[in-house]
């Protein structure tokens, strides 16, 4: 309930077709739920743990040795901003998971700093997700998740875990940091799945 504030529109631009309830921004807002980890590439490691407990590891050099893709996608944050045609460089999860033996349905992304978010395996594969390490032609800044972040642009951007350090695969769906505190377990912006039960 409440009132309308006369003359208030907020920091918004209208125009292009956006998911419901979103507004357009040209900036790249920085959202953080904790201190920014400063992980040097030489100390960075990415670990995939399968549902049987088997571990697959990549260090920075191994990541750089994999074929990279240029990605141009719109991103949508649950705090209502959307940014169009953001450009990234990274390695497809199809590439990283190609040799991982798994039949798991779910993945939990883990980050340096302790953040977690859950994503179904179906949303990580088939050209939908990347480990991104460049933004706009530059190495990914720590405040935007560098040295590397998960990029799952078809879901709300909290799923694109900054400072990603691994995926834990599972047959059952566990919930991540925001998903255990009222946010939607899946988070499709086009269905406006912001909160649990939406």
């Amino acid at each position, binding site marked *: 309930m409440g*009132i309308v*504030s006369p003359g208030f*529109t907020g920091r*918004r631009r209208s125009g292009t077709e956006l998911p419901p309830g979103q507004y357009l921004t040209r900036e790249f807002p920085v959202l953080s739920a904790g201190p920014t980890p400063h992980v040097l590439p030489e100390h960075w490691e990415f670990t995939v743990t399968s549902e049987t407990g088997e571990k697959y590891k990549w260090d920075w050099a191994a990541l750089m040795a994999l074929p990279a893709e240029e990605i141009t996608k719109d991103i949508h944050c649950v705090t209502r901003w959307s940014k169009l045609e953001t450009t990234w460089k990274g390695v497809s999860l199809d590439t990283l998971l190609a040799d991982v033996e798994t039949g798991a349905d779910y993945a939990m992304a883990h980050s340096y700093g302790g953040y977690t978010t859950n994503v179904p395996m179906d949303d990580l594969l088939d050209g939908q997700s990347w480990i991104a390490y460049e933004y706009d032609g530059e190495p990914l800044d720590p405040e935007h998740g560098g040295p590397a972040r998960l990029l799952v642009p078809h879901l709300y951007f909290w799923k694109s875990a900054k400072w990603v350090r691994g995926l834990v695969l599972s047959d059952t769906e566990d919930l991540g940091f925001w998903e255990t505190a009222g946010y939607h377990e899946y988070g499709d912006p086009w269905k406006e799945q912001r909160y649990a039960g939406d």
Partner: protein
Amino acid sequence: MERTAIRRRLTWQVGTVTDVRRETETARTIVLEVPDWPGHLAGQHLDVRLTAPDGYRASRSYSIASAWSGSDSSTIELTVEQVPDGEVSPYLVDVINVGDPLEIRGPVGGWFVWKPEQDGPVQLIGGGSGVVPLRAMLRSHASAGSTTPFRLLYSVRRPESVIYVSDLKELASSDDVDVRLVYTRDAPAGEPRVGRIDADVISQYAFKPEDGATTYVCGPTPFVETVADLLVAAGHDPARVRTERFGPTGDSR
């Protein structure tokens, strides 16, 4: 111990702007009439919520700039500094007018407060618009007729950035209040020092650790961190240093 009264759940209520005062090029004081205002302590703050016609909302927290003057008073003041590219502050500094409604939730906060009955001298250290809750403490000190020694160290960029200029002059005329300005970019004629608050400024102008003062530090997060570290390094008891940080990013909160 009186806990029998059932406390109303604090939630949003609507105040009306009754006056606005320009403080500097980028700061404005808004006077609000809030029916049934329960009163507040110097240093408390409130949340402001703005709602666009399509339901879009943004809220931020602002310190109350005025002292509460008694049971019949339903008037409060907020002083807002415009944040570049901010969302809420430009509305409060440039758009909202006398007669407009403003949704608020407060008063809140019981830590960064000063009560006239409190023991010991008081050191106030403010950076930029961090002076706002400190001004409420000075106002409260004056209206209570308190003789508690108060010192204010106020860090500003340049003379034109000082808010409450006439107010501070008036308050500083009291024997119990000392006001010292520190200029970080440009100082007025006759003031040779330009620079941030450092260990020298603290040792020269602030109460000494043995004076038993309570120190209130308010400003942007980096300012507060720096000053709190300087105080502790100078031997002040961390338990007597109270801090309030605001807006490192975007629009205060």
